[in-house]
């Protein structure tokens, strides 16, 4: 059984059908990049996987638990699924350390000392050891995004979801965040990465998914799909993004 099994899911916002029968499996240790035009449903797909958005039909399984079943404890499930957003969404009233330990002490009921130890490990993974006592508004965008990654990692997730995490960053800050992702990839983290960084998708992702109009339009080994796009839509899309 795959770590994530998405089976013919449909998702609508009122009358607007945003996901139209999407199916996708992700194995443990696999890195899946998701590309597609704005509005094609990439973010929505990601948000369905950790239950932030309910779905109207189909099923999603994560690590043997059905996300969209009423009896599922979403709190438990979300500890296994980290998500990092385009806009960082750090807690501005808390220090970097408290941003990271909040989930550990409140959700995992960990003792403060233990939580701090994990915070130090997590912050080291993103190379920001000296920022533990800083507040988010004292950090650059790239640093904030790395803290957001550390906050997710601290929960020891089995799966990480990344939603265009470099899109809000100045170009010179993108590299430091992508390096963190690459390191995570080397460590064998299972990841689903929505990105406009085609180069990153080509070099780091095992598999590539191209979404179009709420459907998975093309998918396959990242390089193969990028080098030999089969559909007009993907050709047009690749022609329109800077590589």
């Amino acid at each position: 059984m795959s770590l994530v099994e998405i089976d013919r899911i449909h998702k609508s916002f009122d009358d607007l059908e945003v996901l139209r029968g999407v199916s996708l499996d992700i194995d443990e240790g696999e890195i899946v990049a998701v590309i597609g035009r704005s509005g094609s449903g990439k973010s929505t797909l990601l948000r369905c996987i950790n239950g932030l958005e309910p779905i109207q039909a189909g099923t999603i399984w994560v690590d043997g638990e059905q996300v969209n079943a009423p009896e599922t404890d979403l709190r438990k499930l979300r500890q296994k699924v980290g998500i990092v957003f385009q806009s960082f969404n750090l807690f501005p009233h808390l220090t970097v350390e408290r941003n990271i330990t909040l989930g550990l002490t409140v959700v995992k009921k960990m003792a403060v000392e233990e939580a701090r130890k994990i915070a130090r490990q997590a912050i080291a993974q993103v190379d920001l050891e000296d920022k533990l006592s800083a507040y988010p508004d004292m950090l650059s965008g790239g640093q904030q995004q790395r803290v957001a990654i550390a906050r997710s990692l601290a929960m020891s997730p089995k799966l990480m979801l990344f939603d265009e995490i470099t899109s809000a960053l100045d170009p010179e800050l993108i590299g430091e965040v992508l390096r963190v992702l690459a390191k995570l990839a080397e460590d064998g983290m299972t990841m689903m990465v929505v990105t406009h960084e085609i180069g990153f998708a080509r070099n780091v992702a095992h598999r590539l998914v191209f979404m179009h109009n709420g459907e998975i339009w093309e998918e396959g080994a990242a390089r193969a799909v990028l080098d030999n796009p089969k559909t007009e839509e993907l050709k047009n899309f690749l022609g329109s993004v800077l590589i």
Partner: protein
Amino acid sequence: MIRDLATNDFFYLLFAARWTVALAVVSIIGGSLIGVVVMVLRVVPIPPAKWLAVAYIQTIQGTPLLGQLFIIFFGIGVLGYDVSPWIAATVAFSVYSGAFLGEIWRGSVQAVPKTQWEASASIGLSFLEQLRYVVIPQAVRFSIPPTIGFWVHLVKNTSLASIIGFIELTRAGQIINAATFRPMTVYLVIAVLYFCICFPLAKMSERLEGKLRVAR
């Protein structure tokens, strides 16, 4: 008989001002407790809880405070319980404040970006944990000016309690004025005393607001 104003009259007013402050403070505490509950019921994603809170808010905001004072003071009396003006006034003002503070705080909670809810849900926090650790600490900042504005409004409105025989600053002034017939002096002193209570509140609002961090 009309007598002259004496220094004692000033102390009498000062003494009465303590009751104004006491009534305001107790009502703010009582109102805050009710207000927190009203706010939570209002934002919790359970429709009946929301309806209950809305009904409460509409009832209190839609009827005059004076009427609420009368109903609590005389209404409870009709039921056979003897309530002192002090008890009736603190209950009435707490109930009144609870509705307004609850609504002010709901607005502040909703002013916190939705992304803060999503980020905190994503690390596994429950609804109440999200409120407590992430949303309320940030909402506090938005809530300071309107909350303190309401406190000032409440301090001045405590004068209505004189209607049910509670002797606070305004009622004390009426009593002295009846004996001395020096309305200008008496009410000027009263105005100054109200100002002395309210002004520090406004100052506090400014100082607190500068201190807290929120998502932008």
